[in-house]
């Protein structure tokens, strides 16, 4: 349809820019509290009402049905507008719960769950990790027993981002303890308001409390909520992780580029570009930021063209995590002892510690690159 040189895409970009200018919520999102949910819902609803939600989601589920190119242009303008990136409790719903359902859900599940996500009604969370099962996710032990047309769940999840604000959960449970560990897992949609669920927020290193531990006691979930088949959950979870580790985070990634820009600006203000070492590190992160974007666009184009997802998609995420580590440390070096005061950049530095852990640690990602992309022996 359109290259950037042609008018329709430029018009589309202009439309987004104008809309964002006129509709900027003005106030920053309150973090981690119930007010955050209100803020996120309202903002998501406003985007939906103007046709900016689910730009590349199918029209039948109330998306716009446009291509990923338009979605990218939205992300770019969104990030460029200075609006906060990632501070939304809809991140799981939009970035991988919705896309997992689009890829693997039944028609009924899609019709039930997708539109409310776009309308800003239902935040989701991801119940994969457990106290005993982090990197070794397939060892999970939260148990689901079949009772007629219901699953009865007992066990515990942990590190569940925005669990305290979410209505639904991507829940992984063990339905067949006798089967080999990858074969007895089920991916089920869990309504967080079901009796027997106890969510307890956990405070984080950067002063937030966005994730929780969750206890399940005889939680009854309809079998109709199972995505794909019972005991096929590992394969569904792999779809979720492929999306989560792939293009899902594009807006966050572009956000890192914006953070780098802000840091370069700060260094300029402080006349620190004269310092060869800092200048070299700053230009290196700028170059790596550009490379991150190039890699992402290539892998997105590849994924959308139907090519088998390459294990190198994982490399993009890992590269990005390491870039965030560098940016965090660089911020401290640009600020010097001014970073002792808790502020935007010192908080950024604390937050970036999670970039090598969340979504699968960088060590695990490097195992995946080594074994699956390079074919090294296990």
């Amino acid at each position, binding site marked *: 349809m359109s*290259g*950037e040189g042609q008018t329709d895409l430029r018009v589309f970009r202009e439309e987004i820019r104008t809309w964002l200018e006129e509709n900027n919520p003005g106030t920053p999102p309150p973090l981690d509290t119930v007010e955050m949910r209100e803020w996120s819902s309202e903002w998501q609803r406003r985007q939906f009402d103007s046709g900016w939600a689910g730009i590349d989601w199918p029209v039948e589920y109330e998306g716009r049905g446009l*291509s990923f190119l338009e979605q*990218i242009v939205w992300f770019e303008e969104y990030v460029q507008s200075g609006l906060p990136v990632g501070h939304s409790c809809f991140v799981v719903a939009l970035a991988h719960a919705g896309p997992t359902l689009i890829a693997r859900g039944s028609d009924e599940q899609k019709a039930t769950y997708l539109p409310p996500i776009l309308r800003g009604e239902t935040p989701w969370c991801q119940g994969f990790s457990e106290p005993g099962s982090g990197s070794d996710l397939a060892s999970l032990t939260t148990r689901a027993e079949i009772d007629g047309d219901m699953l009865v769940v007992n066990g515990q999840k942990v590190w569940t981002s925005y669990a305290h604000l979410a209505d639904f959960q991507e829940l992984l449970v063990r339905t067949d303890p006798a089967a080999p560990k990858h074969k007895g897992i089920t991916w089920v949609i869990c309504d967080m308001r079901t009796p027997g669920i106890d969510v307890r927020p956990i405070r984080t290193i950067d002063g937030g409390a966005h994730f929780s531990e969750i206890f399940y006691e005889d939680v009854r979930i309809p079998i109709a909520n199972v995505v794909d088949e019972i005991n096929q959950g590992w394969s569904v979870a792999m779809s979720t992780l492929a999306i989560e580790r792939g293009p899902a985070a594009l807006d966050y990634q572009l956000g890192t580029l914006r953070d780098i820009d802000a840091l370069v600006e700060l260094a300029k203000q402080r006349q620190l570009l004269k310092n060869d070492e800092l200048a070299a590190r700053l230009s*290196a992160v700028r*170059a790596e930021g550009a490379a991150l974007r190039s890699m992402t666009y290539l892998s997105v*184009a590849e994924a959308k063209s139907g090519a088998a997802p390459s294990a190198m998609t994982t490399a*993009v995420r890992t590269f990005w995590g390491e870039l965030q580590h560098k940016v965090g440390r660089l911020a401290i070096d640009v600020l010097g002892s001014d970073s002792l005061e808790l502020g935007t950049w010192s908080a950024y530095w604390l937050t970036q510690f999670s970039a090598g852990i969340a979504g699968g640690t960088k060590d695990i990602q490097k195992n995946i*690159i080594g074994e699956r992309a390079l074919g090294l*022996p296990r």
Partner: protein
Amino acid sequence: MNFVLSSEQLEVSTVAAKVLGQLVPFARLRELADAAEAGESALAIDEETWRHCAELGWFGLGIPASRGGVGCGPIEEVLLFVELGRHLAPGPFASTVIATWVASASGHHDLAAQFMDGSRRAGLVVDEFLVDAEPGGLVVQFEGMSCALCEVGALEQVPSVDASVRLARRDVRAVVARVDDPLLAGRAQLLISAMELGIAHAVLDMSVEYAKFRTQFDKPIGTFQAVKHRCADMAMRVHAARAQTLFAGYHVESRTPDAPFQAAAAKVTATRAAKLNTADNVQNHGAIGFTVEHDAGLFARRAHILEFALGGERVAGPTLLEPDRHRFETLPPPVAEWFDVAATR
């Protein structure tokens, strides 16, 4: 990510890989280097091989057909130079291609024709040195946005870290041709980036192969996470350099305002990939990698030379730091097209 390249473009890589494997295998590279060290030859590459490359159109690849070239663009040039890097092809390939651009764009068509038919070569000015310059020959010199083709003065050879690259003290005389084009330096950086990418990729392949084959403690060393993760790091650097070099190629081809920034980002990313990967590759091989017989050293040395070609990171740095922010609004048309093609579902 090859799907983004057309089969004609991929053909450039395939042909170059095949030809270079036959013309300059590493054994030949070593012969040429030995001859240079023994003072037997002033040339980095023999005339016959050079002419053969000229016949394949390599020196006029990016020159419009109307001016006697092949009529391809920066992407094809990148693909060719990745192979030149991977095979450690000796000789002033990048500087001769740049010289052809300069001669052609400044109306020196006879000179351009000589570069294209292989009867002339041009070396490169790198700070206080001349790289692969020849007696009475020409060298390419960048000054900011301007690129000049100059005559070489006295040629005082000095020992080079990479014996397959000729190094002389800088002595530059009259300017023969000059072009002012802010995109020329970027396009030239891409040639160097592409060679660095080829090197980074070649040593990744070398390390992975060795890690599968070399056994210690009754296991292939690739089972050890320290080695496996080093290989994964190498692969990530290659992936980043490749994506950025190609992406920058599309920017240069489409002459977007962002092209100089993107090309500088390619140079920095590819330089880091080449220097870090060649070092990791030596480590992955243990003592054998430290010997002169082993090819690991050839790659490390060449990467070292290329790191400084066209000013290296110090020159690319200011271009990267200059803009207030990354620009998103100029997606080069070919990139926009991938998403379009891809989006029909």
